[in-house]
């Protein structure tokens, strides 16, 4: 039974005289390789020349700070929930007095780790984030010698105030509009939540 219409019945048949001579086949093959002399090599010499990437390219994550330089992440855990690869883990902590310039809200992530070996760079964490804290950037995750080095902590994820990572490409109007749509559960804030009616039975 043929599964496709491309299937071909193969039989071993006697070679014809010209096939037994092999020379025509050899010259045919030689001409094929010769034609490759005039073909452009598709190689991109990576460290010297960088490949042009798409504007929606999803690379290494960044944890953004706000305009005042405080971390935006509140360790709500929505990104970890959204993550299909279960690559994100975090621990939350309460902001102490005098740390207002470090953390924007009263709760923050004391530990925030992304396992880059598990991450599939789908960008769902970015979509899930209600605080505009996590973004995927056009940076390539560097390789390493051990698996442990590929678990990125806050030291590698949080941007520094001196060199903020530009994510304006990721904050297109339609994305921002999407973030405001309260019909999505993960876009609702505490204030939007409808008061729950206690049912008595």
């Amino acid at each position, binding site marked *: 039974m043929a599964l496709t219409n491309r299937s071909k019945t193969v039989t071993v048949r006697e070679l014809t005289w010209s096939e037994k001579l092999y020379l025509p086949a*050899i010259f045919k093959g030689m001409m094929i390789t010769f034609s*490759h002399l005039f073909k452009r090599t*598709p190689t991109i010499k990576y460290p010297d020349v960088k490949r042009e990437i798409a504007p929606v390219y999803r690379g290494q994550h960044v944890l953004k700070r706000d305009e005042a330089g405080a971390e935006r992440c509140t360790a709500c855990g929505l990104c970890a929930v959204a993550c299909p690869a279960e690559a994100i883990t975090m621990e939350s902590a309460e902001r102490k007095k005098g740390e207002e310039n470090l953390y924007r809200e009263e709760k923050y992530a004391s530990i925030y780790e992304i396992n880059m070996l598990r991450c599939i760079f789908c960008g769902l964490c970015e979509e899930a984030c209600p605080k505009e804290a996590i973004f995927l950037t056009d940076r390539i995750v560097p390789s390493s010698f051990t698996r442990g080095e590929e678990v990125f902590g806050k030291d590698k994820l949080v941007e520094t105030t001196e060199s903020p990572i530009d994510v304006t490409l990721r904050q297109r109007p339609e994305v921002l509009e999407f973030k405001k749509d309260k019909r999505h559960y993960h876009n609702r804030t505490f204030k939007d939540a409808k008061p729950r009616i206690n049912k008595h039975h």
Partner: protein
Amino acid sequence: MDAMLIYKLILCVLVFVVSLAMAAYMTWGERKLAAILQDRVGPDRAGPLGLLQPVADGVKMFMKEEMLPGKSNRFLFILGPCLFMVTACMTGAVIPWGSGITINGVLYPMQITDINIGLLYLLGVVSIGVYGIMIGGWASNNKYSLLGALRASSQMISYEVAMGLSLIALVMMTGTLSLGEISRQQDAGLANVVYQPLGFLIFIICAFAETNRAPFDLPECESELVGGYHTEYSSMKLGLFLFAEYINMFISSAVMASLYWGGYNFPFQHELGLEGNTLAILQTVALFAKIVIFIFIFMWVRWTLPRFRYDQLMHLGWRVLLPLSLANIFITGIVMYLMGKLN
């Protein structure tokens, strides 16, 4: 006479140096051409276009650790690659590299020695070349090396037969064994390949087999024999084996150009109206152009054709090329008889 002796010594050194330089840049050319044929870039880190790659490779070869396998025969292990290299370099002595330069009315021929058995000398040196591989492979005390050596020797002996017989037809036609004389004859007439197309085809196939180049590179067949006869070799001893292969390629290209493709002669060379020495230099350039084309064909074939199976190799050598070369001798003889060229 003394001036001639000094000139010959200089020519010896020059041929040696040019062979080595050609071999070095053939390694670069091979890698570059392989890359281009496979739509890759190839070596381009060392110098512009990777032109310093042979230097880097040479330095690497010399700096690497010398390894001698345990229980191997130390003397023979070192003798093997040396012998292979020496025989590879010896063949350049009878090649006519040009017609000759006239200085103060004395003609200095651009050939180290024009012995009247030049072709036999070539065959003799080629047949000695197999010892380097055999001794090296056996002394390694490794079964892969031994198998590679056995393959190499049986292959080279088998193809020497067809090669010698294909040359006999050429010798019948030209009536001389001297390469210088054959080159001069082609100045007057057409290139020998016009009269001996089958002989040339047999010769070039045998040249591929004799130099252990693809598709006849079974002695170093990495899919079965790790590295063949040079499995146990490292550093410059391995380098000598690989280098000698390229020198063999260079010399066999030169032989093919001299015997079949007019040697240093090029078309319409006497119509240009050039002086003796300018013409001689142009002729040498023409010979080198022919050699480069043959080297290109060597590499082009290597990166196109897959390797033979061993029984196919023996079948081709003994049951196709040998009868063909005998038939070629027969046809040449008949044609010469009909044209009344036999006395």
